[in-house]
């Protein structure tokens, strides 16, 4: 057994991981290009998938900031030994935000003609339910009184303002937390830890109140007639579980590559407990949203689930529950199960795919409607963003001077983490 760990160890980003992530990015670009070349319904599908994956990308990076922040606020010690991984996620957030903003800009300002209720309309590819010209202008032939009532929230300046302010704030806090941790390495002492604690407290308050607005704006407004107050928490649970699964997967991968020799199975066990618990929380919120709608059975609310109950979505609707609830429930329930690295790895992979499907079920019925598909665009764009995330995140990780915050006050506790 190795008894001495070198805390000067740096991550070297090269070899298969680098090649594969670059290959995946190329596959993603090709898939986007193919989507546009196919034309017709494929363009709409490509836009929807781009929105899906850029939202997923932003959520995973935000989950990194969120994870760091609540570890600091709880003054948790166990996570100190691998806190560099979520810090690397957090540092990628500005790029992810920029990609999301670029994609929604293209989606909002490129239009196509559709035939709706027997008349031809010119609508944008994304957010057609509220961004179509004339929806909120009284007297226009497109006028929609429901959207008119929501125009204070659903308008382009507010939408951009929200994206820029919220993602800017999340990115700032992610950057600042990583900065403090790097300062700590060179300076030592408690001042940087105290500052991280304060930053985390402020971040969590801002994040808790504003993440639902972000989810309402980016995803829920795709079907702007419908609304659910549970939607924000539902998305928060989804982004948290997928973020945790990816952090755990990166931990497992880097350990298999021979890094993070100081991490042991107890760290993975703790991650497993969080993943298990928040999968149950996701199900709880998912069911709460479904149950209220089912019970009240008000047509304008039920329409959301009505579309998802149509034959082309029903199978995926149930598969979503199987992958995100039953899989972690059955695979991770016992203590011993969380202490088997490969089982954890497969559960994480199922959850990452499962939450892709979760976002798919949220987005597609509102954009491509019955022209749902699962093919080149879906797989290619998923791989492209997976490659992009892997490349940027591992590249950021290799920039850290050391893979461990050497002077973190709780480092010793983390190295002796035992449960």
């Amino acid at each position, binding site marked *: 057994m190795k008894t001495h760990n070198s805390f000067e160890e740096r991550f070297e980003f090269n070899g298969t991981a680098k090649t594969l992530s670059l290959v995946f990015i190329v596959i993603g670009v090709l898939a986007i290009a193919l989507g546009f070349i196919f034309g017709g319904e494929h363009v709409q599908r490509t836009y929807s998938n781009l929105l899906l994956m850029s939202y997923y990308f932003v959520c995973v990076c935000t989950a990194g900031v969120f994870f760091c922040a609540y570890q600091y606020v709880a003054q948790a010690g166990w996570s100190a030994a691998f806190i560099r991984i979520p810090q690397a996620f957090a540092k990628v957030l500005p790029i992810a935000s920029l990609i999301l903003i670029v994609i929604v800009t293209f989606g909002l300002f490129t239009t196509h003609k559709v035939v709706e209720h027997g008349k031809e309309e010119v609508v944008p590819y994304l957010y057609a339910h509220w961004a179509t010209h004339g929806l909120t202008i009284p007297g226009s032939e497109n006028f929609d009184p429901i959207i008119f009532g929501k125009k204070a929230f659903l308008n382009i300046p507010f939408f951009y303002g929200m994206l820029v302010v919220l993602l800017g704030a999340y990115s700032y806090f992610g950057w600042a937390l990583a900065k403090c941790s790097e300062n700590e390495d060179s300076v030592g002492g408690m001042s940087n830890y105290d500052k991280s604690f304060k930053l985390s407290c402020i971040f969590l308050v801002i994040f808790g109140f504003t993440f639902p607005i972000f989810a309402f704006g980016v995803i829920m407004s795709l079907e702007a007639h419908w609304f659910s107050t549970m939607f924000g928490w539902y998305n928060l649970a989804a982004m948290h579980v997928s973020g945790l699964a990816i952090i755990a997967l990166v931990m497992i991968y880097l350990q298999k590559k021979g890094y993070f020799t100081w991490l042991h199975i107890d760290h993975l066990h703790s991650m497993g407990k969080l993943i298990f618990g928040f999968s149950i929380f996701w199900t709880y919120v998912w*069911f709460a949203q*479904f*149950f209220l709608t*089912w*019970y009240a059975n008000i047509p304008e609310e039920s329409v959301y689930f009505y579309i998802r109950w149509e034959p082309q979505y029903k199978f995926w609707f149930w598969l979503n529950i199987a992958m995100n609830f039953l899989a972690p429930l059955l695979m991770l329930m*016992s*203590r011993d199960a969380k202490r088997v690295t490969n089982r954890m790895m497969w559960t994480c992979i199922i959850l990452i795919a499962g939450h892709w499907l979760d976002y798919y079920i949220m987005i597609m019925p509102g954009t491509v409607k019955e022209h749902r598909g699962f093919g080149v665009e879906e797989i290619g764009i998923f791989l492209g963003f997976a490659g992009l995330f892997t490349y940027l995140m591992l590249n950021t990780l290799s920039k850290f001077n050391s893979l461990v915050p050497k002077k973190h006050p709780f480092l010793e506790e983390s190295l002796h983490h035992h449960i």
Partner: protein
Amino acid sequence: MSKTKFILGCFDDPDNMMQGIDNLQKNSIPIYDVYTPMPIHGIEDKMGVKDSRLGYAAFCFGCLGASVIFSILFYTLVLDWPLNVGGKPSFSIPNFVPFTFEWTILFTAFGMTITYFASTHLFPGRAPRVMDLRATDDRFIIAVDAKGNVPHEDITNLLKQAGAVEVKHNERKYVSYE
């Protein structure tokens, strides 16, 4: 014949106590139990304590809670007195989920508490019994069953060598807080 029932090594430092466990184990002297005022990581592995089975108890109590409330709901809402609520069928699963969920948790929580009380003899109203009163305060206690473990002087010496501040030869197993 000595009247000593239990030999208690009292330590004021957990590291010394761990040394005491090592000393006894090296000499093949079985340890009855160890009492500490705070959790000590790694002591279960050292002592060979088996993993807690509380999780299995929790699972059973959870299943019991779910079955009990499901039966009650099924009898009252479906068999005995079906009500028309919003035109929904009387046996509709989503209705049953919140109750079943809550009762699963309720039975699990109560069941685990009762199991814990039963296995530790800590019922409300019963004065807790301990081997040494200071084991809940500032002493780390290693208890060795005196019967069959002779000579007692050797055990005392082993504990003293490890840094025991006091070694007691008790004629009663427990003292009570009464």
